[in-house]
């Protein structure tokens, strides 16, 4: 197990309000890590820093030993909490785009998943239902053979059946040499699939450990530990 992500002394402010303060975090490769915290705790900011959308005000971030930039973007697959596919594109267009820019994109796998979901490749994305659009985004992100998957609230605002589908897709496409960092509120749904837990609050890390170890130590579920740690 080698170190994949190294966040060192990172701070980020939004117009004088600190979103992250002096964060030190290392994540090993090959683990599924949950990033838990209340709204506004800095989860999305941390993920955006890792994906290269934001640059830290202080500190450094390396992924696989490289500073965040075009080279890390080639090995990181990011699922934001917004839809990012341009509305004028058809499904086949966005598949072409991913194939053009990402060497690790597995087109046949993506097309197979879309076929099973009954999503026609010729439709314009603006004609898709909200649920299908979200699934399309997930399919695109998980069809890449990335070293790091960043999933920002992948199951929020989605019905329970779709949630199961999303979690199953994550598990079945998961390559043990890859790393997943997933931020979420819905802890109970993900309890059984996570290896590690990072709890963040007010821009600082409160807890970081292996899920089963924490369960053994506290005798509680991660959901309950979270409620204790973040009691209002």
């Amino acid at each position, binding site marked *: 197990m080698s170190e994949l992500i190294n966040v060192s002394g990172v701070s980020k402010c939004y117009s004088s309000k600190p979103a992250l303060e002096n964060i030190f975090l290392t994540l090993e490769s090959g683990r599924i890590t949950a990033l838990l915290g209340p709204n506004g705790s800095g989860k999305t900011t941390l993920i955006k820093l890792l994906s290269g*959308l*934001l*640059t830290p005000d202080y500190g450094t971030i390396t992924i696989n030993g490289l500073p965040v930039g075009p080279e890390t973007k080639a090995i990181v697959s*990011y699922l*934001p909490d917004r839809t*990012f596919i*341009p509305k*004028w594109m058809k499904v086949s267009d966005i598949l072409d785009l991913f194939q053009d820019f990402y060497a690790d994109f597995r087109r046949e796998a993506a097309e197979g998943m879309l076929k099973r979901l009954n999503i026609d490749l010729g439709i314009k994305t603006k004609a898709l239902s909200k649920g299908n659009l979200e699934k399309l985004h997930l399919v695109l992100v998980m069809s890449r053979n990335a070293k790091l998957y960043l999933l920002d609230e992948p199951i929020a605002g989605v019905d329970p059946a779709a949630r199961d589908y999303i979690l199953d897709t994550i598990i079945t496409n998961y390559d043990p040499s890859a790393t997943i960092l997933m931020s979420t509120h819905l802890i109970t749904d993900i309890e059984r699939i996570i290896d590690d837990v990072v709890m963040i609050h007010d821009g600082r890390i409160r807890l970081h450990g292996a899920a089963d170890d924490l369960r053994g130590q506290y005798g509680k579920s991660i959901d309950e530990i979270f409620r204790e740690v973040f009691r209002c």
Partner: protein
Amino acid sequence: MLSKLLKYDILYFFKNIGILYIVYIGIAAVLSLLTLMSDETIKHTYGGIVFITFFCILFILAYAIPILVIADSSRRFKNNLFSDEGYLTHTLPVPSWQLILSKLIASLINMFVAYAAIFTGVMIFSMSKADRIIDLNLSSLSVGWQIELFKENTMAVAIIIACLALLIMTDFLFITIKATFSIKGLGVLANLGIFFALCFILPFFAAVCFGEINADGWIQMLIFTSGILLISAGMFFLTDLLIKKSLNI
């Protein structure tokens, strides 16, 4: 990767505006055919009025199309880099300067194609017998004349392209500043204001150069073009810096 970015930027333009070019050429073709009607037909049908209407549409489109191209290139830049689509664009494994350059080149290509379409339409029209219906000196619209004009003034063409690049880069920088510093309220009006200001200033200087094709003029034009290109490069650098350091979507 730059060529791949270009592919998608150009694809976007053709899917959005491409149809206008075809409409333009289509109208010009229809118009030319109308002029082949005999005098009798024209008098008895409303051929004359229809003709004038289509001619006016053609005339208006010739001015509207370039404006639409600039507006669309602004929209593309803003949406692709600073809206939700930005989550896709900024996580592509390309350096940010390639994103800007690709859009600049695609806009210039788009302008070129737009003018080519307009000239084609005008050429089709000039081959017709329109002077039967409208008192129009068509010789000034003939394509032969236009080609001669450009042959004599290749430097002028280079200047026009440089000025276009400056215009587009100013637009891009303005959009970037608005987005990274979350300036609201300036919006479309300020954007258009800058656009029209540049539209009047630059052609003025280009017209000045038109009249100066002599030995001294060459040096003047070279200095002018270099100045334009330097300013554009400065804006490019500034835009890239803002995107790298202060992106906030």
